[in-house]
């Protein structure tokens, strides 16, 4: 048996898996978007859910706002994760892997548990309010930090920092140490070395981190549902509404498809910035 055949045999199982459990159900979903209601027949197909989606300015506005929240979350996560990864690589020494594990361990606990922990911190009876009162900065407890868009971003940034740090960590790790020696031999100070050598070489890691955070955040719904209040509602909550309580699956599918198109555009952009080879060695 030649290599080609063996390769074919190896990829056949995952391909069948993808076909049966992803591509076929997904195509069925896409078809269902043309159904009149969640349980009706497919024929005659209707475009009314697409019309309803684009007729309502609210859905598109909500999508734009959610993109903005996802962008801010990704940006802040990277700004906070970069120094962390930098420290681990250049100051962590032989403990860097242990320190990295320490960073990742909280991510093993339940996602919900970590969000609920933020409710305890941000709530009016919570730690942050207690500190503010202790220092006399506010006179009475305010629930405002919780149930707002800021609460959503704060919580999401916390959740995503380890995930943003990982690709940056890998890209920094791959930088040839001799480059730093060469840079200082040529008279560059540490700042110049950072901006001319370290930062440019870690851009693939930054880009990967950005999309690792941005893409899942765009469809996020658990966090806004728990800490978002009335202003913090995101596009994902509207989709969830259609599928669960609303029982309007066709409209939910239309909304999901629009989200998917947008995510695909961003993914294509991602691949234009960094080659697949870079990505695979990082992720």
């Amino acid at each position, binding site marked *: *048996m030649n290599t080609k055949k*063996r390769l074919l*045999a*190896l990829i*056949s*199982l995952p391909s*069948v898996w993808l076909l049966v459990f992803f591509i076929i159900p997904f195509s069925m979903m896409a078809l269902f978007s043309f159904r009149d*209601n*969640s*349980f009706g027949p497919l024929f005659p197909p209707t475009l009314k859910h697409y019309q*309803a989606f684009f007729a*309502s300015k*609210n*859905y598109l*506005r*909500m999508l734009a706002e959610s993109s903005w929240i996802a962008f801010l979350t990704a940006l802040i996560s990277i700004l906070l994760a970069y120094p962390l990864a930098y420290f681990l690589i250049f100051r962590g020494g032989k403990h860097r892997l242990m320190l990295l594990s320490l960073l990742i361990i909280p991510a093993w606990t339940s996602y919900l548990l970590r969000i609920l922990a933020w409710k305890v911190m941000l*709530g*009016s*009876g919570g730690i942050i309010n207690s500190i503010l009162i202790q220092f006399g900065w506010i006179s009475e*407890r305010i*629930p405002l930090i*919780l*149930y707002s868009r800021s609460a959503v971003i704060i919580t999401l940034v916390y959740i995503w920092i380890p995930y943003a740090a990982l690709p940056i960590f890998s890209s920094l790790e791959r930088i040839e140490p001799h480059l730093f020696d060469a840079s200082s031999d040529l008279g560059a100070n540490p700042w110049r070395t950072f901006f001319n050598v370290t930062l440019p070489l870690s851009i693939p890691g930054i880009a990967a981190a950005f999309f690792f955070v941005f893409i899942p955040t765009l469809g996020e719904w658990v966090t806004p*549902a*728990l800490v*978002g*209040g*009335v202003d913090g*509602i995101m596009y994902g*909550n*509207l989709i969830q*509404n*259609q599928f*669960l*309580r*609303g*029982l*309007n699956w066709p409209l939910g599918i239309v909304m999901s498809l629009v989200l998917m198109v947008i995510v695909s555009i961003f993914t294509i952009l991602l691949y234009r910035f960094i080659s697949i080879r870079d990505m695979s060695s990082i992720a």
Partner: protein
Amino acid sequence: MKMKYVQKVVLFCLITVLISGCSPKGQGPVLLEWSGYEQESFWEPYKEQHPDALPVFSFFADDSEGFAKAKSGFAFDLVHPCSSWWKLYVDHGLVQPIDTSRITHLDTFYPDMLAMGQFNGQQYFLPWEWGYESILVRTDLAPDIPESWADLWDPQYSGHISMYDASEAAYLISGMSLGIDPYNATPAEQEQIKQHLIDLKPALLNYWLDYTEIIQLVAQGDVWLASHAWNDAYGVLLEEGYEVEFINPTEGRLSWICGFGIGANETNLDLAYDYLNAVTAPQSMANMGNEFYYGVASQQATDLLDPFVVEILDLEDPAVLENTFFYQPLSEELRTTIEAIWSDVKASN
């Protein structure tokens, strides 16, 4: 030879997947049920009768989830939805008429509640538990005690109101506070109902999702007015010593009621009826009422409730149920309209 090896691997994986997808199944009836209702004290007589055929519970967290599960072909013997969904189950042919001659405690049910489970002249659902939805007030924090649903729109409570994330209740409250009959609203009136809900948004702290959340919010003092909270939340807060009141709005409290129906393709009717008779026995109903602070569907069960539960349900007053506003069965069309309104309200700025 090597291809055979690969084939074996493929076969092994497929079998593993198929086996892991199946779970051991009991002999007893399959219940499509709210989580939390599987407690044995709610169906003890059945256990004594059939210790070898215990019920199998499949849970839903929401009526729409339960309906979707039933509609997509999940085989169940008994289902436990709430009244506004009953008609949809009947219309979609998911339940069969109940042979009332086989119901032991039939004459103990409140006749009005029993009648809600009748469609096309037949009994499709047996009512089981009910409760109020009203405004739960922190009397020590709120400047005034609201008297009607319309008071939610009073600016003095702004920022301290939490509303249940439930489309139907929100629609009903908005309609009632505008003096519109929500079940017979014209499209223009529905638009008014929607706008009224959008107007309320800036005054809301959040939309609450489950009852532990609203209990915490009221206990912490962030929320002074919990809109369409349930009497169980009221009971818990009272027991913990908070100064709370569960008002009786001039438009009437909302009331929900849920009950059991038999699946259309039921194969073991005998077990299903035995379970129904066990769960509707007055003592079983009362065990549930005392556990959740809910009302029960029969007078005999009510007589077995703890005095505390009777008190928080205001059941000393026999006329109390006449002044409440029971959820009515929704047509598919109205349900779709209400969902569209709610989705627009949540997405609006």
